[in-house]
């Protein structure tokens, strides 16, 4: 889910950057408050690369297959590093494969990164519900929600931007209906993304719990 160059007018592209810059600044400020930001840098960088590569895994969904976005999972694992990580990842996708583009980098980063930050906070809610649901169930429920909503939010922003910016001759109400409709059509994908996030978090809990325990 990337918006390529040329589709959006310059004003929207600039607005994208205008939102992405302060969000980046805020993330960096939170990162600099960590005990040792220099120690986190190599971890965040390698995980960014790993997420970037992992999103190329084909998930067979008969009769075809899909790629996952993984922005919700990225939020769960990277915390405040999620936004810079997405910025860097999208930059590489734009210049290496032409997924997205340089003018739309800001827009794309907002579209994927803000849902990732939301997902990161959703995942933290597992601590609130730990007593009620039990440690394991709480983690699983919130991992699923983080993954599903990370994708869902990104889809809503994507369709909103594309439909409102493509000259269509439809009125505002039809456009709105189209945004909701197309986003709802993403429900099955949200289920898959959420399930995948849940399975992956279960795997990490078993093999390398510190990956989801660390707070960045």
């Amino acid at each position, binding site marked *: 889910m990337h918006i390529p160059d040329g589709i959006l007018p310059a004003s929207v592209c600039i607005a994208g950057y205008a939102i992405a810059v302060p969000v980046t600044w805020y993330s960096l400020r939170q990162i600099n408050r960590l005990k040792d930001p220099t120690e986190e840098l190599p971890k965040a960088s390698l995980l960014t690369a790993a997420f970037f590569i992992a999103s190329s895994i084909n998930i067979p969904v008969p009769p075809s297959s899909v790629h996952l976005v993984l922005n919700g999972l990225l939020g769960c694992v990277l915390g405040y590093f999620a936004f810079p990580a997405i910025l860097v990842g999208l930059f590489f996708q734009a210049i290496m494969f032409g997924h997205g583009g340089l003018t739309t980098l800001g827009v794309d980063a907002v579209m994927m990164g803000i849902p990732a930050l939301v997902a990161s906070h959703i995942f933290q809610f597992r601590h609130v519900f730990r007593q009620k649901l039990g440690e394991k169930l709480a983690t699983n429920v919130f991992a699923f929600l983080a993954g599903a909503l990370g994708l869902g939010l990104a889809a809503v922003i994507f369709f909103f931007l594309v439909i409102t910016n493509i000259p269509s001759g439809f009125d505002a109400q039809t456009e709105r209906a189209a945004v909701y409709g197309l986003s709802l059509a993403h429900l099955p994908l949200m289920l898959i993304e959420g399930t995948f996030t849940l399975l992956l978090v279960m*795997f990490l809990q*078993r*093999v*390398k719990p510190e990956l989801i325990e660390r707070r960045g």
Partner: protein
Amino acid sequence: MSSTERLSQTSNTLQQIQLALEIKKLCFCYPDEPNVLHEISLLVKAGERIGVIGHNGCGKTTFFRLICGVLKPNDGEIVVFGEPILPGDFRPEIGLLFQNPDDQLFSASVREDVAFGPQNMGLPPEEVDLRVQEAIALTGLQTLSHRPPHHLSGGEKQMVAIAGVLAMRPRVMLYDEPSANLDLRARRRLIQFLQRSQETLLISAHDLELILEVCDRVILMDEGRIVADGNPHQVMGNQELMERHGLEKPHSLMPHVDSHHG
């Protein structure tokens, strides 16, 4: 059909059963690169243990990937136990052990990892269980079967990776640098394991001493060709031949080495 014809057919079949691998004029190149393998031909009898030696880039790894069908040859044919390999085929009778066990282990427990292959073969659960237990016993992993493979030592990971391939009951096993990351104890254990194993073996290794201890035949490759094929002591003992192809005669084949160092 005359009796002679029938007889020759039978002996043909017998011969095919005897041959684990028939490789005919195999050629391969990557796009935009000169040939990596040139007209490799090789016959391997069932039960043979063949060492494949040569310096890095001589084509060993490519050769193995062609045999197991991961890569598609540009020309030539590979026949395994009488049936030609078609690229994309799933042929559980050929097992490949990758150089780095980490490339091959991804499940959350040793047991699950070993069960992965048999499950993909569509075997019934009892059969899967049986094979997993057998492979785990063969590799001596009983005590580790519930641990995540990611937490094991290098030597243990190697054995898990081997168990994962063995559980598919391969008849030809390809080992790519099996001792590269092992310490002497784990290497010794591996050598003993290989000496006992029943499959037809192809082992590529820089560790020439391992090949001397395990194999009964050795192939020397250089620049995508087989430049020597024969008894390990004779091929590896030929200092001039080894050095011409970027290798060294193994120490154990040098008659009086102490004087070199003394």
